[in-house]
């Protein structure tokens, strides 16, 4: 799931970037060119992947802490750098490789820990009452 967030986000951004470079500069006085951009294959592909990114991100937030999900999915920055180097043939500097190493280390750190803060007994009951009433009551029936 977390790798899916990183993959959808980074590849989606890369596709949008490629599409917008084909379309050219969009000025505030010619916003209609943004509508033209929607017909571009790469932009459309990027939007579809970013919708996938958002759906997987929201799903992950439903079972994991925000402070777990965000650093864990930052591996997407590494995927973007690898796409830039090996697909787009961009120059990746030494500083960027060090940055990639730091991010990978951070992801390794967070991945070894628990994904969700355990709730104390009394707040577990409060949390159940806080939940979406319709689904919570349905869950109670099932």
């Amino acid at each position, binding site marked *: 799931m977390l790798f899916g967030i990183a993959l959808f986000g980074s590849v989606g951004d890369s596709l949008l970037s490629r599409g917008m470079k084909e379309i050219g500069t969009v000025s505030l006085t010619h916003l209609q060119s943004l509508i033209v951009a929607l017909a571009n294959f790469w932009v459309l592909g990027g939007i579809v992947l970013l919708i996938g990114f958002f759906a997987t991100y929201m799903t992950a937030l439903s079972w994991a*802490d925000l402070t777990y999900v965000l650093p864990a999915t*930052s591996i997407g920055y590494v995927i973007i750098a690898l796409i830039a180097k090996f697909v787009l043939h961009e120059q990746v500097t030494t500083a960027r490789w060090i940055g990639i190493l730091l*991010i990978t280390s951070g992801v390794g750190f967070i991945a070894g820990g628990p994904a969700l803060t355990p709730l104390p007994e009394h707040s577990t009951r409060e949390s159940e009452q806080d939940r979406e009433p319709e689904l919570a009551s349905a869950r109670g029936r099932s």
Partner: protein
Amino acid sequence: MKPAYTWAAIFLMVTASVTGDVLLSKAMKQIGDVGDLWQDHGIFRVVGSVLRHPLFALGIAAMAIAFFALLFGLSWGDVSLIAPASASLTFVGNMIAAKLFLHERVDRRRCIAVALVACGVVLLAF
């Protein structure tokens, strides 16, 4: 004045982005594990519950403010400053906000991870 405008946009973007992330996280925790709910009630009911949740709408609004702050920031400053500065400050801001408002257990492991990722993101700009 442009550096002041640029940093104001970065500050607004980070604040709005952290607010959005916290609201979305809170909304999803209240809704419950999407995987379990999907199995029990079907995808459409789960999607409907997410879309109708007031905190979800507020979170999306905050994210929209962050997006427009980014656009304004990019019109005043360099992307090589704005992108890494806003991303790394958002990581740190999220850690503080998650501890304060979501009562997440931010232990030493998570602090080190956030610091490593924030520094790494800054280095990606060079």
